[in-house]
């Protein structure tokens, strides 16, 4: 296996290697010459715009989108204005920055999504250069105009344009510049001749990197590392300065002896890098310059494009793609010639074992004597993760598995996880998928995002396989994929509504977490309202159907679904929505067909909008309720006139409702009110608002017998009641003579036992006795008992 190291090149005390990723499956006529190329990190897609500068209207440049392995995803002629820069967002959307400052956003499949402008002033001054950068806030864009002004947008999804201050003495575009993200601030570092400036929101400061003297020449190229931590500056005299991007510290200073400006310059490092380097590319040469001052040179045959990754640099040419990276320490330990690291020994032991050689035992013993077997297994497993070649992966994993047999107390977790992850990685690295992710990148990207990317590229079966294989809970895994699939499916224009609905229902079934209403919403967005309704029918929770139905203006259906759901809040939401959307008449008509919603709305109106309530009853010709409404209103009215007029309205409505009883009662009430008012005015009796009974009581207690009598006659108070009333009132006032006179006025309709009892109640036995004789024979005993 010595040949593994054949592709290794030493750089300082570390090694660099180039790994073949793909034979590119594209066929480019003119290679990568004269094209704008943008390739996204993390094995992202590649966008290619041919000859963007050619401006003849007859031949439009072609915009092509490829997967990282060169598989064609989309291709279409560019019809908009001249493009300055292409770039990819973190969510794999293509940004095309035009000369006039307009940014057009396309999805992976080349369909236009939206556009925005980098500011009004750009339209006149034109964009000279633009850069797309990624930060924790999302994807940002920076431009510099021909009037030498910079404009920044840190997150294109939450667009806030910032125009940076002027750079003193800058004419045209700067010789080179980069965007830095430091301390939650986005800045621009630029050079103008020998001077270096930092440009932030408010100021433009001249800076001087430590250890870079002005004699070294003008800065012609600069590059910032993937993590924004390191900076490399190249001068026209071929000096390469590297240091921290804070410009606080210098790492190294190398004289490359190349005076020609490179086409591209990128950092190449990895997490826990031993020997970070800067990669410079000219037409025929690729130079790797380590901070240790050593260099590696690779010749180049074709024009290439470099893509910076977190753990290396991808080199894309028209024919193939390679990954240049520092060899991870653990791989060095295992594969370095004559390495005695435990992992290397274990690999050797396993090789001997397969050859059925007893040397296997010797190697094993050697590891075990140092009690390094656990470490050996770990090394093999880790190294397998870093290897791209499946055979190497296999032999390392087998060695690890072999070593594991001799360990009693070793957790298999790491081994199992790495096996699984490698399997997934190998699957997505396949040229037909084209996601050349390293294990380190995969860890950084997370599995969730990987699945998202697969879904986004419409590799649904693979995504589902991955979810199932890695046993991701349905809710986050399979269901999510299915949801995306269904949302995509509903956009297929060549299928009928029925066919799509059936297909969706068959695949999705009742997977947990897949909401049919979401799918239906998507269908509606694509203008397929009928399909949306069909899909909504699959939705089990009627509450979920409502918002979309409202959006689709199927308000009746929405209301009945809301009622069906039994959620009154939802019903109310629909009602208040309808109230604003419809005209009053239609609104009331709709409510009328939904009693539940109607009573809910009535309850609300009773407390909030009395007037609406009236309209509601009016609309329904509900005279009874309308009359009741007036009666209620009359209680709130303080003035007698207002009260009477409200009651009159009530009477009219009762009449319409053919409720004669209520008519009469209300009229009586009005009569009583007038009567009370009159007496209040004349005698100050304070009667207004009292009931008939209480009025009579008060009159009697005031000694206004004549008026009481009048009420008794006018309102046809039953004799019994009047007699009870008068009896009680006279007794309470102890007007015994008057009482006696009253008893004799005619035959008592309530009998005379009542007289006896009332007198006793008022503690007047003497008076009580007067009436005993008049009591009917049946009640005599009771009367005598009462008197005692």
């Amino acid at each position, binding site marked *: 296996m010595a040949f593994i190291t054949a592709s290794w090149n030493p750089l300082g005390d570390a090694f660099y290697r180039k790994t073949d990723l793909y034979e590119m499956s594209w066929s480019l006529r003119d290679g990568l010459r004269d094209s704008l190329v943008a390739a996204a990190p993390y094995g992202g897609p590649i966008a290619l715009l041919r000859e963007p500068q050619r401006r003849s209207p007859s031949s439009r440049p072609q915009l092509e989108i490829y997967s990282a392995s060169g598989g064609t995803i989309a291709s279409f002629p560019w019809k908009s204005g001249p493009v300055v820069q292409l770039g990819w967002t973190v969510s794999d959307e293509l940004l095309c920055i035009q000369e006039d400052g307009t940014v057009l956003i396309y999805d992976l499949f080349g369909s236009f999504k939206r556009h925005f402008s980098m500011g009004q002033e750009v339209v006149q001054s034109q964009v000279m250069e633009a850069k797309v950068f990624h930060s924790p806030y999302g994807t940002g864009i920076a431009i510099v105009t021909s009037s030498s002004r910079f404009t920044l947008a840190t997150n294109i999804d939450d667009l806030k344009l910032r125009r940076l201050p002027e750079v003193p003495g800058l004419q045209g575009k700067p010789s080179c510049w980069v965007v830095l993200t430091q301390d939650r601030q986005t800045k621009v570092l630029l050079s103008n001749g020998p001077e270096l400036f930092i440009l932030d929101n408010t100021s433009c400061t001249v800076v001087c990197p430590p250890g870079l003297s002005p004699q070294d020449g003008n800065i012609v190229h600069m590059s910032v590392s993937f993590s924004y931590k390191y900076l490399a500056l190249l001068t026209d005299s071929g000096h390469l300065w590297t240091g921290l991007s804070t410009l606080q510290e210098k790492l190294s200073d190398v004289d490359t002896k190349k005076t020609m400006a490179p086409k591209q310059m990128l950092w190449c490092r990895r997490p826990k890098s031993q020997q970070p380097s800067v990669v410079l590319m000219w037409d025929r040469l690729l130079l790797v310059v380590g901070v240790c001052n050593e260099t590696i040179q690779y010749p180049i045959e074709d024009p290439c494009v470099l893509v910076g990754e977190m753990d290396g640099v991808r080199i894309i040419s028209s024919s193939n793609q390679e990954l240049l990276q520092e060899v991870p320490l653990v791989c060095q330990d295992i594969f370095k010639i004559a390495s005695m690291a435990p992992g290397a020994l274990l690999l050797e032991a396993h090789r001997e074992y397969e050859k059925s050689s007893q040397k296997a035992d010797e190697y094993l013993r050697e590891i075990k004597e140092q009690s390094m077997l656990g470490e050996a297994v770990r090394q093999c497993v880790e190294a397998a993760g870093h290897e791209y070649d499946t055979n190497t992966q296999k032999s390392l994993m087998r060695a690890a598995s072999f070593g594991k047999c001799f360990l009693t107390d070793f957790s298999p977790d790491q081994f199992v996880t790495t096996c699984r992850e490698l399997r997934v990685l190998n699957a997505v690295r396949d040229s037909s998928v084209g996601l050349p992710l390293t294990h380190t990148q995969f860890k950084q990207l997370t599995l969730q995002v990987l699945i998202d990317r697969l879904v986004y590229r419409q590799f649904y079966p693979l995504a589902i396989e991955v979810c199932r294989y890695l046993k991701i809970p349905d809710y986050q895994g399979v269901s999510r994929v299915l949801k995306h699939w269904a949302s995509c499916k509903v956009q297929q224009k060549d299928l009928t509504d029925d066919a799509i609905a059936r297909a969706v229902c068959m695949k999705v079934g009742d997977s947990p977490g897949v909401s049919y209403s979401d799918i239906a919403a998507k269908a509606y967005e694509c203008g397929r309202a009928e399909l949306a309704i069909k899909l909504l029918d699959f939705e089990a929770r009627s509450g979920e159907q409502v918002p979309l139905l409202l959006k689709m203006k199927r308000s009746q259906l929405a209301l009945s679904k809301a009622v069906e759901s039994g959620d009154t809040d939802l019903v109310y939401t629909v009602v208040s929505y309808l109230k604003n959307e419809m005209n009053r008449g239609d609104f009331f008509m709709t409510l009328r067909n939904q*009693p539940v919603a109607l009573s809910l709305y009535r309850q609300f109106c009773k407390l909030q909008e009395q007037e609406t309530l009236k309209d509601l009853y009016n609309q329904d010709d509900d005279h009874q309720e309308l009359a009741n409404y007036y009666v209620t209103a009359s209680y709130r009215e303080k003035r007698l006139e207002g009260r009477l007029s409200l009651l009159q309205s009530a009477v009219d409505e009762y009449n319409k409702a053919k409720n004669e009883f209520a008519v009469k009662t209300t009229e009586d009430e009005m009569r009583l009110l007038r009567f009370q008012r009159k007496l209040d005015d004349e005698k100050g009796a304070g009667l207004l608002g009292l009931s008939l009974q209480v009025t009579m009581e008060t009159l009697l207690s005031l000694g206004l017998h004549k008026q009481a009598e009048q009420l008794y006659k006018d309102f046809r108070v039953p004799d019994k009641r009047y007699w*009870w009333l008068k009896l009680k009132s006279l007794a309470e006032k102890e007007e015994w003579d008057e009482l006696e006179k009253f008893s004799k006025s005619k035959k008592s309709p309530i009998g005379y036992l009542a007289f006896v009892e009332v007198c006793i109640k008022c503690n007047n036995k003497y008076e009580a006795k007067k009436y005993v004789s008049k009591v009917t024979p049946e009640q005599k005993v009771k009367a005598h008992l009462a008197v005692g």
Partner: protein
Amino acid sequence: MAHSARRDSPELPDFSILKRLARDQLIYLLEQLPGKKDLFIEADLMSPLDRIANVSTLKQHEVDKLYKVEHKPVISTSDQLCFLIRPRIQTVKWICDVVNTDKVPGKSRRYKIIFTPQKFYACEAVLEEQGIFGDVSIDEWPFYLLPLDDDIISMELPEFFQDNFLAGDQRWVRTAGSALHLLYSLYGPFSKVYGIGRCSKMAYESWREQVEEGEQKARQAEIGNVFLIDRDVDFVTPLCSQVVYEGLVDDIFRIKCGCVEFGPDVTASDKSVKVMLNSHDKVFSEIRNEHFSNVFGFLSQKARNLQTAYDKRRGMDIKQMKTFVSEELKGLKQEHRLLSLHIGASESIMKKKTKQDFQELLKTEHLLLEGFEIRECISYIEEHINRQVSMIESLRLLCLLSITENGLLPKDYRSLKAQYLQSYGVDHLLTFSNLRQLGLLVEQQPGETLTVMESKVGKLVNDKTAGKLTDAFSSLAKKSNFRALSRKLNLVPKTDEEYDLRVPRDMAYIFSGAYIPLSCKLIEQVLERDGWTGLEEVTRLLNGHEFAVTGSSGVDSRGKNDTQRIILVMFLGGCTYSEISALRFLGREKGYKFIVVTTAITNSSRLLEALLDNHV
């Protein structure tokens, strides 16, 4: 009677968890508003809150002052106001006024509204309309259930009844479903769910939805079957005068949230005393379910026992005395105090209720239930109205008459209504409209059955008798649902035997042997038949909406273990203490234990007051 329980009756689940849960949730919400704050509490939430967290608990969590939510300017100077309210539009409007008043002088405070048990969209809409949605933070305190006793849990939502049955506003149905879900998640799974009534069915469905949304955990069930019942299935029972001790105390003194305030006439001093009425009160727990006529006997026996216990002191040596004082005396003293209170209460009840007119009132009620001498009853009610005995009582009798007779004759309806309006004020016109809407007090529609029956009878007897019989028939022959139900379910026991109230033989004892409460009888029948089979006629008369569902978990396969005999009965729209007493009796007879969950404890007065419409 509490001592004559069947020895194998199962243990009740521990409901104090509900209180702890509610308290922890409230504390969590209060801590969401750090720093000192004044707490404004909805008036009718005060008592329930007191059962959950007392003032010192609130103070521990930086509640400074406590106020009642009222429609008047706040005097609080705190810069953080927290409102604990029911989701009522009226209250929310008051709070809007408070906030808007503060805005005028530019005063800035933090406001937090905690809705319990949940918020409603309408409330938020009001906040939005009044332009203060952004000024207040909103939370929900899911305090659905308050255990009032070992076997009574109340949602303390009296407005459930009006809103749902009168206004047709179903907003609380989901709340009831959530309450059931809470019980399910703590004490479930249930093996079978029965129910009757539209609202019950909806509450059941709402609960099922919540079960399906949530995750299921396999756990030991502590509740067997569940029975849901709407209040409008049986209006007769709550309209009858209560004569069981606990019910009587509620009718007369009004038990509020499991606690009653005895006035000076009971305590025989010039102070009022608040007493918690539950099974921890040893005296009360023995007499609560007794017919009132037995209570005095029990109490005097108790007094004698107490005296004997005190008398043990005599002839003790020092050591014995010491143990007596440390162990027994305190208990005896406590019992003594309670005993004297209950004796006082009983005396006060006696004064009010043993008078002639109460006996006559009961007699009228019994006649109405039996359907005899309706004319006499009507004139009794008439007199009742004319003499203005009591506005609510008169209304209660009218309703009872109407339900048992399936509506009043148009002639009677008009005259009684006119008299009532003259007596108690014309504003009750709207009350009558409410009662009619609910079917509590209606006018008979000229029915065909009547004429058919009349002509038949007319042929059989001579004209004179037929004329006399018309009145009687008008009440009998009509599709009087109550009458038919009463016959089917045998609700009115035969009157010819003497009913010994000391040894009750059925649930009728709670109404002096005159009537078995319909609601409880239904529960008994359904549990006995394990469903509604054989009750088809009954459910038809009750307007259907019955259901019986076996739970999804296969608990019932394990057969009749103890849990199976714990029955949760949920009354939607309130239940009375008499019904609870009847269920306790049924439980003792059949070896069940009933847990009563209700939207609120009700009685005839509360029921009718909710329907009065003169206070708007």
